[in-house]
């Protein structure tokens, strides 16, 4: 597999994880420092099922996601009622607890040495399909009534509740969706790298996902995807100065937050309707439609 394909698959997996954080942090305003732990659960459970119990790969992925959803339900139900800062702390504690269990259950997971020998079953095509499905799902959630309700909760929880939105119920669903996406990304990554270790799933990983969302703009799905792509590919591009690249990465993020706090993209979304709406008023309807179609074709070709 060529170097670019490998980077591409890693980027696709990162985007799926970041999409979970986008819904959670960007849309609903919840800060979870334990998202990477769900990724770890997805990776470990699916890898264990396939390697130790010889479960078929697709079933193992489904079971791993279901397992993460179960754990997420328990964590979300107990911690989402408490205040935001506590939620960040509780998810942080959850993440570290999961890592501790992974490190300690040496018999099953190989402990800190990691769990090797996972077959490479995530093909580039599978990763691409998974990415498209995840983007489609998150986009639809964002534009549904549910998504707008979540935005209302982020903006003002009290006002949203007064308008009849059940904030706890929405937060729990969003948290589960995020957990599921992260676990799915984890399963894909385990079967791509063929190796998992607890150190991959610490709280800093969760923080990096949040940073990626804010880099692109938390109100823009395009921005979140762009942020994930750029910031996960950037360390690869900056490989010439490996020691400095994290520092440069941090500096770029600081500059963006200071000078463009809404993120690179603000509220802007890549949309075909938006492209066609930009033509000057007074253009003929039929001509406009042809032009829109042409522009759509152009955009597709660019993508």
């Amino acid at each position: 597999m060529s170097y670019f394909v490998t980077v591409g698959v890693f980027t696709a997996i990162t985007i799926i994880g970041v999409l979970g954080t986008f819904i959670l942090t960007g849309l609903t305003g919840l800060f979870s420092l334990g998202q990477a732990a769900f990724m770890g659960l997805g990776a470990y459970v699916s890898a264990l099922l396939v390697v130790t119990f010889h479960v078929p790969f697709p079933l193992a992925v489904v079971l791993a996601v279901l397992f993460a959803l179960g754990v997420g339900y328990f964590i979300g139900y107990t911690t989402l009622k408490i205040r935001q800062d506590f939620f960040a702390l509780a998810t942080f504690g959850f993440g570290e607890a999961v890592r501790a269990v992974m490190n300690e259950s040496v018999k099953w997971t190989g402990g800190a040495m990691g769990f090797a020998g996972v077959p490479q079953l995530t093909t580039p095509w599978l990763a691409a399909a998974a990415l498209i499905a995840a983007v489609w799902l998150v986009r639809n959630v964002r534009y549904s009534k549910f998504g707008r309700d979540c935005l209302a909760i982020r903006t003002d929880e009290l006002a949203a509740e007064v308008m009849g939105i059940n904030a706890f119920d929405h937060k729990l669903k969003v948290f589960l969706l995020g957990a599921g996406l992260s676990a799915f990304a984890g399963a894909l990554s385990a079967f791509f790298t063929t190796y998992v270790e607890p150190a991959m799933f610490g709280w800093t990983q969760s923080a990096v996902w949040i940073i990626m969302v804010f880099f692109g703009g938390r109100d823009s799905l395009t921005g979140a995807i762009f942020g994930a792509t750029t910031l996960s590919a950037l360390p690869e591009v900056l490989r010439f100065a490996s020691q400095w690249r994290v520092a440069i990465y941090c500096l770029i993020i600081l500059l963006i937050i200071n000078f463009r706090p809404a993120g690179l993209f603000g509220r802007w979304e890549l949309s075909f309707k938006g492209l066609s709406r930009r033509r000057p008023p007074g253009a003929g309807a039929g001509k406009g439609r042809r032009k829109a179609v042409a522009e759509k074709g152009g955009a597709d070709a660019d993508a």
Partner: protein
Amino acid sequence: MEGTSTFSFVVQQMVNGISLGAVYALIAVGFALVFNVLKFSNFSHGGVIGISAYVGFLGALHLHLPLLPTLLLGTLAGGVVASVVEFLAFRSIRKKRGQLVYFFVTSVTMLMLLEQVLVIFFGASFFTYPQLIRTTSFTVGGVSISILYILMMVCAAVAFAVLAWALRYTKVGIAIRAASNDLTTTNLMGVNVDFIVLATFFVSGLLAGLSGVLLGMAYTLYPQIGQLVVKGFIASVLGGLGSLTGAAMGALALGIVEVFLITVMGAGLSPAVIFVLMVVFLLVRPQGFAGVSFKEKA
């Protein structure tokens, strides 16, 4: 005989726990100071801890500083670094009245950046402080007490005494307390808020620096040592956000519980148990030990 040995075991663990808790309290109070004024969880505090631990190490190694000057050097370095962080990273967000989330994201980024600075200059390897204390421990009634642990407790006690005095009687301290209550009104009363926020970061940095040097002496130095800031985070939430005393109490409790858990079940699984205890505690008493419930909105 059996009874005395159990008793001395418990006393031994209590001493260890309280001294660990004392260092956690230094972290937690510094963390809570900034939280009280700007209402965000300042993870860059960890970066300051890391940098000052290394500065103290360099002073002790290359300038052959004895114990007290090393502590002072690290403490001052912490204050300076925290002020620089405030000036470079947080000031413009505050001027633009940015949302709290931007502070939060910036603080996590600063933690990563400061850690990376350490990696760039020192590599990812481990260092140990030179021997600054001659005798390492003494024994009282079957309980062996390390001098370092005594030092931790004394440092924390002195630091908190000075802090309490400063917050109560100095002009800047009173202004910091006023700013914790309401930043805008403090500004309207003619207080230079920019200076007060800088001062808050400086004081919080002093505490971070002191805890950094102590942590460096107690453990080995590595670039990620600043991530121990999460102990302060846990402690200040357990203690009740908005209360400095609560943060210190939470830190002591955390230190004692941690030491007992590590002796009983080993360092590996103790984070899992601490997590469960923490969630239960937050569910039972969400306002924390101190009971000062911090409100985001009226």
